[in-house]
């Protein structure tokens, strides 16, 4: 065993202490999610033209980030977990972008 052997990973500056998130935090997250659900439903009945999808998806993304950070504890995890989650979503965006650019450019110049 070297002197740097650190199975709990506590000497590592990347270490994140295990935290128990309190019901108060969960309650605030719950209220936030309900309020933004109300906002997104209300916004759907207002004609914003092309911004209706933009607003709806922005609110959905915000809610998803809140769920990931608090309900799924990512805010309190080590950098390894944070990077894993971020890498997954980033890869997903890359795949969407590449597939979409293929479909957009297939009939390039034919319209």
């Amino acid at each position, binding site marked *: 065993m070297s002197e740097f052997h650190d*199975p*709990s*990973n*506590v000497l590592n500056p990347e270490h994140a202490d*295990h935290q*128990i*998130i*309190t*019901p108060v935090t*969960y*309650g605030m*997250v*719950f209220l936030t*999610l*309900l309020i933004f*659900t109300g906002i*997104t*439903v209300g*916004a*759907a*009945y*207002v*004609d914003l033209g092309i911004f*209706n*999808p933009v607003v*709806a*998806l922005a*609110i*959905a993304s915000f*809610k*998803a980030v809140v*769920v*990931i950070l*608090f*309900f*799924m*504890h990512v805010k309190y*995890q*080590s950098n*390894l*977990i944070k990077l*894993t*989650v971020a*890498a*997954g*979503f980033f*890869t*997903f965006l890359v*795949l*969407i972008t590449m*597939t*979409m650019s293929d*479909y957009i450019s297939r009939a390039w110049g034919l319209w």
Partner: protein
Amino acid sequence: MDNAIVATRPHTHETAVAAEHEHVVLPQHRHHFETKEQQREAATFGMWLFLLTEIMFFGGLFFAYLLYRNWYHDAFVVSSNQLSIPLGAANTAILITSGFFMALGVWAAEVQKKSLLVLFLVLTTVFGVAFLGIKAVEYHEKWEKHHIPGSHFDVSEFINPPVNPKTGKLTEKPLAPDMAQKTQVFFFLYFAMTGMHAFHMILGIGLLFWLTWRANRGEFSAGYVAPIENFGLYWHFVDIVWLFLFPLLYLINRHPGY
């Protein structure tokens, strides 16, 4: 070649007199992990890797929606208006509530309160089942209106929209027959996406029964939180999928003019 084995696994007092060296193995600290912390982080890491494959899986469906919505926009607008916003919004609230109780369940396991944990798991299940109940009502309405893609699909309502008795105007913009057929693409994606989401919930509810039974035996109220925590990650992930399905299917094609 016996020596090779002896060299790597020397015969020790521990292996010779195993009975004297009974280890107390806690489920939160199994023998192949050096510390509890290491085991917990490994489990969280593994669960997230699984969820990333789920993102890719649902991502394919979301991409199909994105593409076909651009191709057959008029058909998507009209068929999206067939969905009930009040039912969809109620289901969103129900699912968020279910996720809230799941989060509280993780807290109850962390602070080792057994009866609270069981209560929260039961509440999570109840709201999950309520969500599926409303989904079933919605599916049944589509069945009655022949809006399930296939040989019995009925496009007449999209070609000849009914007149609103109050305003005297058509309730929808009429579609040309070929575009009206494309409403089937919307409903196919609607059933594929919400169906796959509902399938994940049914699996989750099955797991919840199993976890509630184990929680009731006290398995998760003595420091072993990982099954509750990792199931929570799964349940919240399923919530997130719905948080995107709801605006995409129900909301963004609303057109208040009609």
